[in-house]
């Protein structure tokens, strides 16, 4: 029997959790926050969905093959920023050369790197959860 209170409350909470994750992600330049925390908060929203609505429904939103691509995409973004700064004449992960001014370059660089960290962390947390939770099915 579906639990009505759980369904209604989690449908109300999940968008808020995702918005908070995005806030933590993109406010990481100016205050406490960043990719690690935001990725975990984001995956907590999906894990809540999986616990309330079932694992199959959650895997319909983010299929496991997509999670594996996302987990490596984050690493590619992180390393790609470093290689891009190498190609632009700086050191590896030297953000200053990424844009026309040094401050703009630092902003862009840390934003992209934290985005990569966030994508990888949320994807890996979901892979860990789905792997453990999916063991009972076979």
């Amino acid at each position, binding site marked *: 029997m579906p639990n009505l209170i759980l369904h209604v409350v989690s449908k109300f909470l999940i968008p808020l959790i995702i918005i908070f994750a995005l806030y933590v992600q993109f406010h990481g330049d*100016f*205050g*406490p926050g*960043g990719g*690690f925390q935001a990725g975990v908060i984001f995956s907590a929203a999906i894990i809540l969905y999986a616990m309330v609505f079932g694992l199959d429904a959650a895997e319909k939103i983010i299929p496991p093959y997509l999670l594996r691509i996302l987990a490596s995409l984050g690493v590619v973004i992180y390393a790609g920023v470093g290689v891009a700064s190498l190609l632009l004449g700086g050191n590896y992960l030297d953000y200053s050369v990424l844009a026309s001014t040094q401050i703009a370059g630092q902003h862009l660089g840390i934003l992209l790197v934290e985005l990569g960290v966030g994508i990888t*962390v949320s994807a890996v*947390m979901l892979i*860990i959860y789905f792997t*453990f939770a999916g*063991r009972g099915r076979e």
Partner: protein
Amino acid sequence: MDLFLGHYNYWVVIFLMMVGLYTVISRGNLVKKIIGLNIFQVSVFLLYINMSTLEDGAAPIIAEGVALYSNPLPHVLILTAIVVGVATTALALALVVRIKEAYGTIEEDEIHKQDHSL
């Protein structure tokens, strides 16, 4: 008195550390052992963060009218340690799942009864 009240954060750390250690030693259930290990780990995180925090210290971001900043290096170290902790917990849980499949139990004394080579 100042030893207890002035440094209460360190007493919290010691309490959590001993709770974790006692749980690891006294419980035979492997999942409970992992929970104890995690509590122990959190106490070490708190110890490092406490040491680097200043009273009235702001986040280490340059701003007008702020002179005192907390040292960000231990926080970053602990951020990495938290991520490593998640990975080791996942590995430990995977080992427990495998032990459960092999022996049919996660109680330590029952595993010892089944396998005399341990």
